């Protein structure tokens, strides 16, 4: 009788811990592309709506073969690099000042908050007057676009540095500069890096806006030109390049994080 009552304890745990499986992502991608390919080939998707993925791939191959890929990529990359380096480094500098000094904080936070929602394309005509139509205005636009999010991320990161570590530094009589260099900056690094992810994504997005201004070559100019001609293959080829660029820089920052932040759990 009692034997019939003996039974294993029911299991009720597990779940709520989704894991990303690499393969599935690829499969979804490939399926999606295959579907579009099939749709465009059969005409079920009109060629005004989407280009044939294989045509886009061909366009990319041609672009690479003819060397034009590099012709367009090189100026864009250098604009992105110079602009982002300027914007991010200024942003980190200002962010740290905001994080450390009450007066700077009080003066600049409202300014940055007001600057943040200004669409950079709206300022394009001004940028021509301020910086000319050459590279300077492109650098400036990308720098401005990356500056504000970097500032916000950086001062947030400085604010989040564990105050007990700072009190520890003071209690051992470390100088102000030592505390900033050895405690505040390394402690803010994770936040700064994750802010950089967003900033650089914004930088890539702004490439197109920047190259609205008198750029003959560049991925943004290529896309704009394709858009003007309603050449969907080239338009998508350009978009694929930008998207790849975004995924790539995000991956690079990921590598940087694992390298610089090995100390994190």
């Amino acid at each position, binding site marked *: 009788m009692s034997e019939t009552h003996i039974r294993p304890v029911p299991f009720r745990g597990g779940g709520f811990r989704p894991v990303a499986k690499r393969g599935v992502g690829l499969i979804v991608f490939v399926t999606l592309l295959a579907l579009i390919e099939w749709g465009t080939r059969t005409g079920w998707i009109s060629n*005004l709506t989407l280009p044939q993925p294989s045509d886009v791939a061909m366009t990319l191959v041609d672009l690479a073969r003819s060397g034009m890929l590099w012709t367009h990529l090189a100026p864009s990359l250098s604009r992105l690099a110079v602009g982002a380096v300027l914007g991010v480094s200024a942003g980190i500098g200002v962010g740290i000042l905001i994080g450390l000094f009450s007066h700077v904080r009080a003066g600049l936070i409202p300014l940055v908050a007001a600057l943040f929602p200004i669409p950079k394309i709206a300022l*394009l*005509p001004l940028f*021509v*007057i301020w910086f*000319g*139509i*050459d590279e300077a205005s492109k650098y400036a636009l990308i720098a401005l676009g990356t500056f504000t999010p970097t500032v916000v991320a950086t001062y947030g990161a400085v604010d989040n540095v564990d105050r007990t570590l700072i009190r520890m530094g003071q209690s051992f009589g470390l100088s102000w500069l030592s505390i900033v260099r050895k405690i505040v900056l390394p402690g803010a690094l994770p936040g700064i890096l994750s802010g950089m992810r967003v900033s650089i994504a914004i930088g890539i997005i702004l490439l197109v806006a920047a190259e*609205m*201004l*008198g750029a*003959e070559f560049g991925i943004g*100019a290529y896309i*704009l*030109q394709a*858009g*003007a*001609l*309603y050449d969907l293959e080239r338009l998508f080829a350009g978009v694929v390049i930008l998207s790849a660029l975004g995924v790539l820089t995000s991956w690079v920052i990921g590598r940087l994080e694992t390298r610089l932040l090995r100390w994190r759990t």
Partner: protein
Amino acid sequence: NTAINVGALRFTSHAASFVAFERGYFAEEGLDVNFRFFEAAQPMAVAIASGDADYAVTAISGGLISLAEKGAAKVIGGALSEEPGIDGQMILASNPAFEAGLTAPAMLDGKSFAVTQPGSSFHYMGAKIGAAESASLSYKPLQKVGAIIGAMKSGQVDAWTIVPHIGKALVGGGAVQQIGMVADYLPDYQVTTVFTSAANAAKERARTEAFLRAFSRGADDFNAALVDKIAGEDGADDMVKLIHKYVYADQPYEKASKSIVNGAMRLNKNASLNMGSVSDQVEWFKSEGLIKDSITTETLVDPSYAEMT
């Protein structure tokens, strides 16, 4: 030699500069010309103001007038103009609108009309045509010619005006229908003008005159070869080849030459400027509230360089 920057769009209407450069007319005047290419007219006007370009050719737009009002730019001569009898800008209707009865400009009332931006030359033409037909139009700003073409093809806007080399290709492909000519409504329309910074106009007289002389020689060659067609087949071919270096350079010659020939419109002789058309345009901008009321043609034009007709 003095080095100057000349702003240009890769359009046939800018051919005078290309011809003057290729045939050495600029060099003969002692000018080292360096072309700066733009995607649209508006940034080119701003570039003149910022000093990135010295001379350029563009339509009279609200932006140009505003810059003139700020003392940054001056119109010094005329370039492209409409002339009855020569294929000029076309009035187009989208296929669905055409089928629904928009077969002539007289039927424009209540239709939508594509413009790049409010205050652009498209807006002016639409307004003038509308006024003449006493039709009320709704204007759709679409920023880019490419976007407008997309919208016309898919029937999302009803009507548009455009230069002949684009219009003829579209009509030829059956994507849109032609319903009239701009020249019928604006017979002496001064489409584009030569302009420079106010500083150049005031202080660099010798250089500016040299530029205009060379530019006019280029315009004369162009008119002779492609508008009046008095230079013969070979002359026309040479001219098309010359222009092809700058315009549609990424297309094969056969295809490009058709567009170039289609796009040939009269360039004003000796850069003379049709003041009547200019003041009509300025008045229209004022009436639309796009520019300040205090602006006059004197603000815009420096009449001391070219003949004012």
